[in-house]
């Protein structure tokens, strides 16, 4: 077990280093001169080539790829994201402010998604192949095909423009969060319904259940010791998957609804070629992803003796 977890940790470290190199390579090879962008932000004026070259030297961009990479990585490891190339303000406070809009939105989306999909999936699996089941599958398929940005626009059209019930743009009041959260939640519900439904069907078909029952194991013990660990695996996998979905969805949804969250932060930064902002978002999302995957990987190994048996 210890060596298996060590292997998982080693993998996470390798992947994290890989993400750092990839991110830096992307910024290094992007067209446009980062030194010029930084100089412009710092001095707020059109500059001569001399000044730009001076900045290039200061920031360490005049060296080779690897030297520049180490110079870039140092501050990053101390979670110092530097200064915006556009406003000159430190990156972290602005990034944190954006996250305080995105996290509640993602959580609300997840909550709405669960509240819709769990009852739907449970009802659908009461009679597999029945009318309700087929309806649930149809809704889930349709939901998976509807892009978040179009759904958002349709909701704005219906509830804000036609009915005038809810505000659409901005994030001034809690009511402003309703439409974005519902947009995100409906997308989450579609994918969750599918996964939970097949999870329940699969768990029901397990041959060990009748075997245990016939051996006279009490119902409670069966549920606690056999069904719950079995069901936990897809739930944890799902958490990792939904995290990706929520992040991607939030980016688009925030842009549509004009919420000043991570999505708007990222798109604005890309358009303005604000490299420090872009790199902060990319590095942070990759870090969260790797950590979540690491946690689920370790969790699998703790809960399911079959996984990782081939590593030992």
């Amino acid at each position, binding site marked *: 077990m210890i060596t298996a977890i060590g292997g998982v940790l080693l*993998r996470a470290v*390798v*992947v*994290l280093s*890989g*993400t750092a190199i*990839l991110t830096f390579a*992307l*910024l290094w090879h*992007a*067209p446009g001169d980062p030194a010029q962008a930084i100089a412009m932000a710092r001095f707020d004026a059109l500059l001569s080539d001399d000044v730009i070259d001076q900045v290039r030297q200061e920031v360490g961009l005049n060296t080779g790829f690897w030297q520049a990479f180490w110079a870039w990585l140092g501050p990053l490891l101390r979670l110092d994201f530097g200064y915006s190339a556009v406003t000159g303000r430190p990156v972290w406070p602005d990034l944190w402010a954006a996250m305080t809009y995105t996290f509640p939105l993602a959580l609300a989306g997840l909550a709405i998604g669960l509240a819709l999909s769990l009852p739907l999936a449970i009802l659908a699996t009461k009679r597999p192949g029945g009318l309700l089941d087929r309806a649930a599958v149809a809704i889930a*398929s*349709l939901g*998976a*095909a*509807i*892009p978040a*940005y*179009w759904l958002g*626009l*349709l909701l*704005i*059209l219906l509830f804000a*423009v*036609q009915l005038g019930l809810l505000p659409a743009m901005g994030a001034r009041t809690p009511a402003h969060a309703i439409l974005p959260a519902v947009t995100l939640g409906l997308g989450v519900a579609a994918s969750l319904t599918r996964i939970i439904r097949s999870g329940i069907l699969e768990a029901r078909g397990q041959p060990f259940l009748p075997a245990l029952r016939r051996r006279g194991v009490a119902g409670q013990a069966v549920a606690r010791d056999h069904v719950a660990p079995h069901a936990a695996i897809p739930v944890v996998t799902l958490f990792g998957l939904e995290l*990706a979905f929520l*992040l*991607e969805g939030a*980016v*688009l949804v925030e*842009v*549509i609804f004009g919420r000043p969250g991570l999505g708007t932060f*990222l*798109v604005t930064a*890309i*358009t303005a*070629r604000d490299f420090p902002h*872009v790199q902060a*978002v*990319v590095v942070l*999302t*990759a870090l969260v*992803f*790797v950590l979540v*995957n690491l946690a689920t990987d370790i969790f699998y190994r703790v809960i399911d003796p079959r996984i990782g048996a081939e590593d030992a």
Partner: protein
Amino acid sequence: MRSVALVVTGLVALAVLGPLLAPYDPTAIDIPNRLSGPTQTFPLGTDALGRDILSRLLYGARWSLGLAFLISVLSLIIGTSVGLIAALGGRIADWSLMRATDTFLAFPELVAAVVIAGLMGAGTWSLIFALSVTGWMRYARVARGIGLSVQSRGYVVQARLAGMPGWSIARWHYLPSLIPSLTVVWTGMFARAILGISALGFLGFGVQPPNPEWGAMLLDARVHMRSTPLQMIWPGLAVVSCVLAINLAGDALRDALAKDGQPG
């Protein structure tokens, strides 16, 4: 399987014939008729520059479906190569290629595509690069898994011992096992590529105006939501119906293959 054939034929016909059926030039500007609702002359209305929306949708099919096809095939080639090299190249190649795959998987697909396409400068080539480079990992994992399982099968070992050359083992033993599963993965990725193209187009980082691409059309239509709400409905419906058709065809294909008892 009939539904699969139907969907494939329909989509190919749409991409090939669409532009021929279009009543107008999709970029022809007609200011006096701008933002018109559906009329006899303009069946789906016109956009802010008076361009015929039906014609733009039909030409847009070639952009969305054609690019999605290109992107999904490119990532299929990259992913399958990586997966097979990992499976057959020994432990070191396997470990390092799979960690590289994990690294690419560590970025949320769409976020990474937006960053790459945006930083490379908006345009069709950046779009193709961004979506291919973020879309090959699933193929790699599937191809590796099948490669590893086929490698130890009796008939492959026997073929190797009998002195069958490597390429013909690949052709006669690996390919038949790979094709069904990779086709199923491919349908999913094709649908994802359509969604990705339109998402990037909607954010302004994809196909650039005046080219008629469905996501970019949504971006144009969004501003005129109050005056001509229908303008926003059409491109979205086009995306949804294509993605839905492909996903359903993919499900049917998977079920049919599962019944045949194919591996994977």
